[in-house]
C-alpha cells in the first residue's frame, strides 16, 4: 500500500488541472516551484546541518538571469533557465567556500550577508534589473508546441521538474553521499576523525542546494514573466526556512508539503483577513515548540517509517 502512495499522490497532482480553474492552477504551480526551492534548502538544514538564511540569493539570481537575458538580449527562456542554474551553482560554490569556514549563528549571518549583497546589487543596478520597480515583458518559450503562456503547460513543466527533483534528491540522500551529509550534521568531528573531508562535503552539499534553488528560481522567472527585488528580499529566505521546518526538515518530501501549506494558507487566510502573518507566525511558533519534526516528520513517526 505505502509503496504506491507516492505514485498515487503524483497521479492525483497530475490530474489537478482538470478540476482546478486558472487561478487554482497558478497557485498550485507556485506551490510546486517553491516545493523545489524548499527541498533544496532541506539538503542544507535537514541533512548537512547548515542553517542558511540567504537561500533566496540563488533563487533570485536564477530568476533574474531568465528574465533579464530574455528582455534585454532576447535569449530564449530555456537557455536562460540553463544559464540561471549554472549561475546559481557557481555563486553557490563561491558563497559556500567562504561561509562554511564558520558554523552556527555565524554561518547564518554570513549567508544572510551574501544574500543582502545580491539584493543590494539588484537594487542599485537599475539599468539591468529595474530596481524595485522590477523588470517585466518576458517572452515565454514553447514546450512541445505549446507556449508556457498557457497555465496548464507551465503547470506540467513545474510538475515534471518537481518529480525529477524529488527523485534525484531522494536518491542522493539514500546514497552513501547522503549518509556522509547526515553524519556531518550529527557529528562533524567524528566524521573528520573517520577520514572524511568534512569541508569538501559541506561545500558539495551547499553547491547542490544552490543548483536546485537555481532550478526553482528559473522556473519562477518563467512562471511570473516578471522579476523584482522582492524575489531577493531576506524575507524570501525566511519564508523558505519556515516551509522546511513546517513540513519537516530532513525528509525531502516534508519541505515540499511545507511549501504548499505555507502558500495555500497565505492565499486562503489573506482572502478573509489582512492578518495572515500573525497566523503563520503563530503556527510556526507552535510547530517549533511542539512539533519540531514538522508535519511530514510526524506522519512518518506515526506510520512508523524511517525517513
Amino acid at each position, binding site marked *: 500500500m505505502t509503496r504506491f502512495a507516492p505514485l498515487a499522490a503524483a497521479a492525483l497532482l497530475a490530474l489537478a488541472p482538470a478540476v482546478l480553474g486558472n487561478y487554482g492552477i497558478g497557485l498550485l504551480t507556485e506551490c510546486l516551484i517553491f516545493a523545489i526551492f524548499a527541498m533544496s534548502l532541506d539538503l542544507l538544514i535537514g541533512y548537512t546541518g547548515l*542553517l542558511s538564511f540567504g537561500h533566496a540569493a540563488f533563487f533570485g539570481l536564477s530568476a533574474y538571469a531568465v528574465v533579464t537575458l530574455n528582455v534585454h538580449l532576447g535569449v530564449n527562456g530555456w537557455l536562460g533557465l540553463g544559464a540561471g542554474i549554472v549561475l546559481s551553482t557557481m555563486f553557490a560554490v563561491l558563497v559556500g567556500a*567562504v561561509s562554511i*569556514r*564558520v558554523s*552556527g*549563528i*555565524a554561518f*547564518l*549571518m*554570513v549567508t*544572510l*550577508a*551574501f544574500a*543582502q*549583497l545580491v539584493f*543590494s*546589487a539588484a*537594487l*542599485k543596478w537599475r539599468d539591468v534589473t529595474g530596481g524595485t520597480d522590477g523588470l517585466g515583458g518576458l517572452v515565454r518559450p514553447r514546450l512541445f508546441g505549446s507556449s508556457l503562456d498557457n497555465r496548464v503547460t507551465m503547470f506540467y513543466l513545474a510538475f515534471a521538474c518537481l518529480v525529477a527533483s524529488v527523485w534525484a534528491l531522494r536518491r542522493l540522500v539514500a546514497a552513501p553521499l547522503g549518509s556522509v551529509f547526515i553524519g556531518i550534521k550529527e557529528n562533524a568531528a567524528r566524521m573528520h576523525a573517520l577520514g572524511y573531508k568534512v569541508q569538501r562535503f559541506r561545500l558539495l552539499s551547499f553547491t547542490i542546494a544552490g543548483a536546485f534553488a537555481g532550478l526553482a528560481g528559473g522556473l519562477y522567472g518563467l512562471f511570473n514573466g516578471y522579476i523584482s527585488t522582492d524575489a531577493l528580499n*531576506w524575507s524570501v529566505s*525566511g519564508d523558505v*526556512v*519556515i516551509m522546511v*521546518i513546517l513540513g519537516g526538515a530532513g525528509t525531502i518530501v516534508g519541505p515540499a508539503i511545507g511549501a504548499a501549506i505555507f502558500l495555500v494558507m497565505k492565499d486562503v487566510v489573506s482572502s478573509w483577513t*489582512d*492578518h495572515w*502573518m*500573525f497566523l*503563520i*507566525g*503563530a503556527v*510556526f*511558533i507552535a510547530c*517549533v*515548540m511542539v512539533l*519540531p519534526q514538522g508535519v511530514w516528520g510526524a506522519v512518518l513517526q506515526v506510520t512508523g517509517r524511517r525517513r
Partner: protein
Amino acid sequence: MHFLITQVLNGLVSGMILFLTAAGLSLIFGLMNVVNVAHGSFFMLGAFVGLSVQQFTGSFWAALLLAPLPALLLGAVMERVFIRPLYRRGHLDQVLLTFGFTFVFVDAVRWLWGSGISSVSVPPVLDGIVRLGGIVVPKYRLFLIFVGLLLALVLWLVIERTRLGAMVRASVDDAPTAEGMGINVPLLQSSVFAAGVGIAALGGAVAAPIIGVYTGMDIEILIPAFIVVVIGGMGSLSGAFFGSVFVGLADTLGRSYLPGLSLFLVYVVMIVVLLTRPAGLFVARRS
C-alpha cells in the same frame, strides 16, 4: 570640513540608536546563548507605545518612561513560556522560534496602530539647534548621543560594579557553577531578557523623532544590530558599543562619500570580520 563633522555626528547618532538595540541583543546572547531575532520587534513596539503615550498625555518624557513597560512584560512572558523550554535544544531552534515571533509582532502592531508612518515631535526644550563652532547641530541629536553614552555608562557600572552585575557575569561564565553557588540563574535569565528587550523598546521610543514610527522598522534595526553584535563579539557589552559606533559611522559616511556602495560596505566588513576574527573584533575579556 564642516560637512565631515556633521556626518560624523550623524554617524554617532545612528550608532547610539544601534547600541540601544545591540546592547540587549548581545547581553541576552552572552547570558542565555539565545539569539533573539525578535529583538527588533521590541524596538518597534517601544516606538509605537511611545507614540501612543505621547498622543495621549502630550508628554514626551512620559512616553520615554512608559515605552519600555509593555516590552519588559512581554519579554518576561516570552522568555518564561516559549524560550525556556527550548534551552536544551540549541541556538538554531531559538532562532526559528524568535523568527516566528517577528511575524506575530509586526502583524499585531499593524493591527493595533495601522501601517502608516507617524512622526513624533520632540519636546520644546530639545527643539531647535545649537551652534558648535560654526556647525549647526539639532539639539535632539545631541540628546540622543547623550542618552546612548549614559546608557552605556549605566550598563557598564551595573555589570562591572554591582553585586547583581557580578552574578550576571558569573552566570555568563559558568551557569552550573553559579547555580551551585546559590545564584538563581533562571530568574537572572528572565530578568536580563526582559531588561534587554526593555532597553530596545526605550531605544525605539527615543529614536522615533529621528527615524519615525512605522512597521518595518523592526527589520531595519535588526539586521544592522546583528551585524554590530557579530562584529563586536556576541555577549560583549563594550563590543556592542564600539561595534555600534563603527557600523553607525561606516554606514553614514559610506552613504555620503560612496553612495551606491554604502550597503555593500557594511556587509563586506561583516563577512571579513566573521572570517578573520569569528569571535568578534572587540571580544569580551575572559579569565
